[in-house]
């Protein structure tokens, strides 16, 4: 082997030949490698930024949600139906006896059915439980008492073996209550149900996505200086979606074309203005709601008969409350004492069998935090990528801290688990793990995957139940698991792609290196004549190839850096805003960078480029060294 310095000098002379071909090779191969270089810079930059941002929000937390898969087929459960029918008979017997005792009329035929019977053509009659009937309700409660639904303790039992260290729960609002629940817009109660808006605004419709959620899960989304405790004024804290917050403070939604700077400004404004936004709701129980209906009806009758001189007002007339969520006043009572006694007995009879006394209450809420809206399916292109990479969310919705709700009996009543079970709004369990590996293990081993392809209408969850996997599991809160996976996959994909590029690069380089070696046959022959060993010749050409490869790697770096800089310029702002909102960053001056040198990738690329070069040189070089130098000298002369 000759000295490296000398070999380098001789190799450098090769770089001065066939400059056009050399340049084309460097540019084409360099562009190929630059794609990888750019991808590395951008992806590693993104990962580093996610790491930095995700210290807040739900980032870097490995949370798995579990929905129980138990089939709630209580409506067609024969035992429950039979029990409901028994209870119904008993109820009718008791009511008949009580009516007799009170001396009032009672027709069992008017008693709501506990079980409804349907005639299905071609089949025998089918029976279905009526869950709102008194007997139906009781039958369900009895059944649930002996067959409890899966709960937090069951989920803990599943997740603890995998290392879960904290457990949370969310309970969705069951979409309905016994009575009415109305947001008091502008502090006013609307009594005219028919005039309610067809497209209610965010506030009016918030109960559609209202949940109780463990405070620990809400904490990252609480605005600075706010608290998840019940206020001294009794107000219930509420964490609401960004879009709803915008709507509450009457900020028009930003257009899709809004610049990152505009979005950032909006975030600042939103955080400032939504703080301590309060609103109230009025709850009227079924009896109170019924009185409002009666008042409305009486009013309508009176209006219709304004000009009818023969119209005789009913003896008992209810009026609308004079203040929001007030009691329903009696505005006319012309009943005689007999009638009053009779009505009193009827009232007593109904109360004996479950009708509540009219009640209403105002509940006030205050906004203490905002949570990003869930990623919309129609987000396209870059926004889709940004949203899926940078996510820290509770999945959308309005959230009341579970702990605060438990201090408010009325709220606990709204979130009645039985009603939730009947409506399909079952609680969701959450388990938090220390590391992604544990969470991944839990997800892969304990998850129930419903088999929707099961034959003959078989229960898709049958196998899960058999396997003792009662929960459908999903990563929750942030995409930390996905990012972790992408990060792991990126390394592998990057290396595989590099190998792919290496093969293409080797073919391109082989053209140039092969041509150069062939062109240099005479020189090789002369060098051999003046004493170069085959190894010396190989050394010169391999060094040349390495220099060429390094040139390609340097060019790739240059283009890759330029491409990453362009990406940063074009999308860095959008990523920053998304991350600031998603992670509820306290420092709004943080920036999301799509540019980070990850030296192992750079060195790997350089090594691959060099290996590619050596690979491309090997074949022509071996062929060249096998040649007879005499022939090569003769060929040229």
């Amino acid at each position, binding site marked *: 082997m000759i*000295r490296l310095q000398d070999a380098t000098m001789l190799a450098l002379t090769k770089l001065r030949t066939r400059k056009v071909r050399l340049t084309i090779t460097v540019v084409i191969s360099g562009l190929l490698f630059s794609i990888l270089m750019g991808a590395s810079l951008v992806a590693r930059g993104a990962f580093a930024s996610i790491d930095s941002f995700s210290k807040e929000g739900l980032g870097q937390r490995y949370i798995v949600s579990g929905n129980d898969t138990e089939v709630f087929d209580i409506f067609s459960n024969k035992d429950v139906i039979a029990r409901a029918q028994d209870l119904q008979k008993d109820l009718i017997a008791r009511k008949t006896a009580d009516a007799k005792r009170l001396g009032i009329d009672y027709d069992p035929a008017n008693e709501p059915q506990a079980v409804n019977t349907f005639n299905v053509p071609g089949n025998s009659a089918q029976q279905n439980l009526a869950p709102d009937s008194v007997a139906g309700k009781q039958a369900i409660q009895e059944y649930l008492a002996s067959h409890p639904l899966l709960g937090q303790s069951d989920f803990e039992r599943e997740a603890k073996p995998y290392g879960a260290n904290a457990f949370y729960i969310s309970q969705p609002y069951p979409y309905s209550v016994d009575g009415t629940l109305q947001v008091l817009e502008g502090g006013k109660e609307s009594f005219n149900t028919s005039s309610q808006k067809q497209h209610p605004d965010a506030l009016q419709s918030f109960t559609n996505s209202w949940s109780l959620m463990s405070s620990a899960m809400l904490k990252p989304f609480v605005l600075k200086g706010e608290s998840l405790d019940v206020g001294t004024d009794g107000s219930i804290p509420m964490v609401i979606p960004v879009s709803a917050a915008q709507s509450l403070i009457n900020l028009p939604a930003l257009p899709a074309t809004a610049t990152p700077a505009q979005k950032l400004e909006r975030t600042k404004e939103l955080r400032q203005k939504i703080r301590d936004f309060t609103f109230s709701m009025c709850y009227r129980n079924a009896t109170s709601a019924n009185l409002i209906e009666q008042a409305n009806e009486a009013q309508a009758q009176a209006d219709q008969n304004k000009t009818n001189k023969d119209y005789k007002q009913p003896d008992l007339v209810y009026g609308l409350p004079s203040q929001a969520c007030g009691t329903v006043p009696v505005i006319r009572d012309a009943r005689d004492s007999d009638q009053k006694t009779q009505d009193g007995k009827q009232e007593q009879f109904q109360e004996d069998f479950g009708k509540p006394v009219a009640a209403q209450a105002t509940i006030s809420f205050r906004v203490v935090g905002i949570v990003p809206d869930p990623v919309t399916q129609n987000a396209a292109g870059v926004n889709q990528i940004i949203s899926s990479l940078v996510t820290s969310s509770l999945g959308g919705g309005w959230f009341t801290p579970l702990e605060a709700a438990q201090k408010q009996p009325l709220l606990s009543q709204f979130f009645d688990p039985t009603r939730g079970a009947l409506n399909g709004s079952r609680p969701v369990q959450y388990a938090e793990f220390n590391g992604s590996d544990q969470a991944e293990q839990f997800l892969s081993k304990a998850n129930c995957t419903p088999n929707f392809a099961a034959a003959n209408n078989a229960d898709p969850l049958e196998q899960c139940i058999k396997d003792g996997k009662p929960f459908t599991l999903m990563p929750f809160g942030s995409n930390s698991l996905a990012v972790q996976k992408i990060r792991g996959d990126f390394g592998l994909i990057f290396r595989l792609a590099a190998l792919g590029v290496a093969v293409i690069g080797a073919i391109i380089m082989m053209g140039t290196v092969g041509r150069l070696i062939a062109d240099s046959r005479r020189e090789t022959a002369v060098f051999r004549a003046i*004493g170069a060993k085959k190894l010396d010749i190989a050394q010169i050409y391999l060094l040349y190839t390495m220099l060429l490869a390094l040139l390609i790697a340097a060019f790739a770096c240059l283009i890759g850096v330029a491409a990453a800089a362009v990406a940063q310029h074009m999308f860095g702002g959008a990523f920053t805003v998304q991350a600031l909102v998603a992670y509820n960053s306290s420092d709004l001056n943080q920036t999301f960078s799509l540019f980070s040198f990850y030296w192992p990738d750079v060195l790997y690329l350089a090594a691959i480029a060099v290996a590619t070069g050596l690979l491309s040189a090997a074949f022509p070089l071996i062929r060249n060294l096998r040649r007879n130098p005499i022939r090569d000298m003769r060929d040229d002369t």
Partner: protein
Amino acid sequence: MKQRDMTNTDIETKAQQFLALFADDTEAAIAALRQAGTKKHQATGRTPAPVGPVLVNINGLSKAYKVGKQHINALDDVSLAVHEGEFVAFTGPSGSGKSTLLQLIGGLDKPSRGTITIDGQELTTLSDRKLSVFRNRTIGFVFQFFYLQPFLRLEANLEVPGMFARIKHSERKTRAGELASAVGLQDRLRHLPKELSGGQMQRAAIARAMLNRPKLILADEPTGNLDSVNGKAIIDLFEQMRREFGTTIIIVTHDPKVAAHADREIVLRDGRIAL
């Protein structure tokens, strides 16, 4: 080694080696010597130069090529000896085998039969690697078309054989400078070959061939690409090298004037030495 420095033992050894070539046929040996001397004397009008011990000894050398189905005998049973400090010219018509002979002596090709011994080293037994080292240290090549590296400055071009010998850079630089002066190119060291004339390039090639101080210079048509003035200068340079360094010179030439400068002209015809 000059003739006058040789001891009697050396002379006797060389004489015996010479006689061995003729299988103890003393008559034939004397006849051969006479003929050679006469021929030389006739051609140059000079007395044969004194020669040292045998440096190159070729015995029964044949080289056959296969071209298609035909066997061509480029060299056929050639035997000869070249002495240290001798200036020998191989002449003969094209295809006579003179270049083939030169290349075989240079270890660039393997003979089909026979042996080549240079400086006591039998070339046909050497591995490719050892042959390379041997060429690098013992032989200097000069080509008709100079074959300088176009992108290296003259100084680096001269140093190339030293690079393969792993001679230190400073030592190479010194030698290159001395040789450049010896061939009159001391002020061209920083120039690229394209900035030199043909004669200068060939002088540079000779200097390059001399860098590792070889015992033997093999030159294939060194003046073939030069005008007569430059050709003459090159031959003078070979003479100078021989004088200053005692280098043995074998050249292949078509030019009778060049051949006339040699101590001995060996004419080849159809792969054989034409005596």
